[in-house]
């Protein structure tokens, strides 16, 4: 044999692996994206009413934020396992666990965004005869959008990473390939799937950044001028929450 077979040699990087198992890799990636997207979408749908409740009735704010924070400190393997009696070995188990994790950051960010809506804007809208729903939809939510999208970005990136743990119930997307590669000592499979996972997180982050710029063009307009202040305030702002569940 003139050409060394990287599959037989069990190399870390193996083009032949990617060629021969491309379908498997695509399927796993699709599953990974589907689980992540469903989790973040449901997470936003659950977090928004919770944030509105916490804002409407002050006494609910502490328990809502408290419970979501406690959920955040539960290790992912335990979280998925605790849901096992309710969902069995299913994709909905993984999605539910990921939704519960996403709530911490999403509720916090949406609440902060809503609370930062200037009182004048609210008063002006009321003066123009806006009802509470129209006020929320046309004034408050658009103004809270940057904070919401920042939360969605952080959540999406950590959800992509956390989805791998779903491998414990066989619904981990690329994580299933990674765990499988451990059992078979298949280095190329583990490295390829891990790299795809990181690439997925970075791609999702960049896409959401683009979406953020597209949807909130007004946030960029004044960022260019006061360069010194913007830079000074930036590091603290970009870290909404520095820990992430594993």
């Amino acid at each position: 044999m003139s050409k060394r077979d990287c599959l037989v040699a069990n190399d870390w990087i193996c083009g032949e692996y990617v060629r021969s198992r491309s379908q498997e890799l695509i399927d796993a990636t699709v599953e990974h994206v589907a689980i992540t997207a469903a989790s973040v979408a449901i997470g936003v749908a659950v977090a928004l009413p919770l944030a509105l409740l916490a804002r409407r009735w002050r006494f609910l704010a502490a328990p809502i934020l408290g419970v979501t924070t406690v959920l955040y400190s539960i290790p992912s393997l335990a979280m998925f396992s605790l849901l096992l009696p309710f969902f069995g070995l299913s994709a909905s188990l993984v999605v539910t666990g990921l939704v519960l994790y996403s709530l911490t950051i999403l509720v916090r960010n949406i609440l902060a965004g809503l609370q930062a809506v200037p009182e004048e804007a609210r008063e002006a809208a009321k003066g123009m005869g806006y009802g509470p729903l129209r006020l929320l939809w046309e004034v408050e939510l658009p103004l809270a959008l940057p904070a919401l999208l920042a939360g969605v970005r952080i959540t999406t990136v950590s959800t992509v990473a956390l989805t791998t743990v779903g491998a414990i119930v066989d619904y981990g997307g690329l994580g299933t390939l990674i765990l499988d590669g451990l059992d078979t000592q298949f280095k190329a499979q583990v490295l390829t799937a891990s790299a795809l996972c990181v690439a997925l997180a970075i791609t999702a982050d960049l896409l959401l950044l683009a979406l953020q710029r597209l949807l909130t063009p007004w946030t960029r307009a004044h960022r260019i001028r006061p360069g010194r202040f913007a830079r000074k305030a930036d590091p603290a702002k970009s870290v909404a929450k520095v820990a992430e569940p594993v």
Partner: protein
Amino acid sequence: MNAISGAYDWLTTSANWQGEKGVWHRLAEHLYFSGVCLAVACLIALPIAMLLGHIGKGGALAVNISNVGRAVPTLAVLILLTLTPLGEHGDLPTLIALVLFAVPPLLTNAYIGMREVDRSVVEAARGMGMSGGQVFARVELPLAYPMVMTGVRSAAVQVVATATLAAMAGEGGLGRIITAGFNLQNTPQVVAGAFLVALLALAVEGVLVLAGWVFDPMRGRSRVSE
């Protein structure tokens, strides 16, 4: 709920607590991994973060390392390290992974804590003739303490969670009770193990909140200058 009463039975069966696969031994492994790695991570990250914070450099690194840490799946790192030659050295891959994932929250929080110290207070301290070291030890450190402790708490939660995942890469710790339960298709054992892990994570966080309060250098004094 069947599985929940089953889990209760599992937890109250004393045989499940004894021996090499029992709860006590797994808990000891878990605490050993977590404790050693958290200490090592603190020794690495805190001096760097505080030095960077004191001289006001390297902020982009300190902040972005957390974002990078978020994007990298813990499970992938654990399994990758296990498959490298390091995997032949028993616990080493797990210990390395635990330290790697504990460093970002420590670094970021301690750095931000140092930078958020009111500059006018630091200027006043310098004006009173304090040296760089005195400013650091007597002004910046006490004021940055809450953020440093937040970082330690996040890192501890992270380490306990990562140590749980180590079971999926074939290591010990409480996570092993869960993975063994999955292999045996024993749902009560899975739930019981998960309950223990969740309890441990919350207990660790609680103990650190308490420790943070007890060791607060500014306890009983106000951090706000007004």
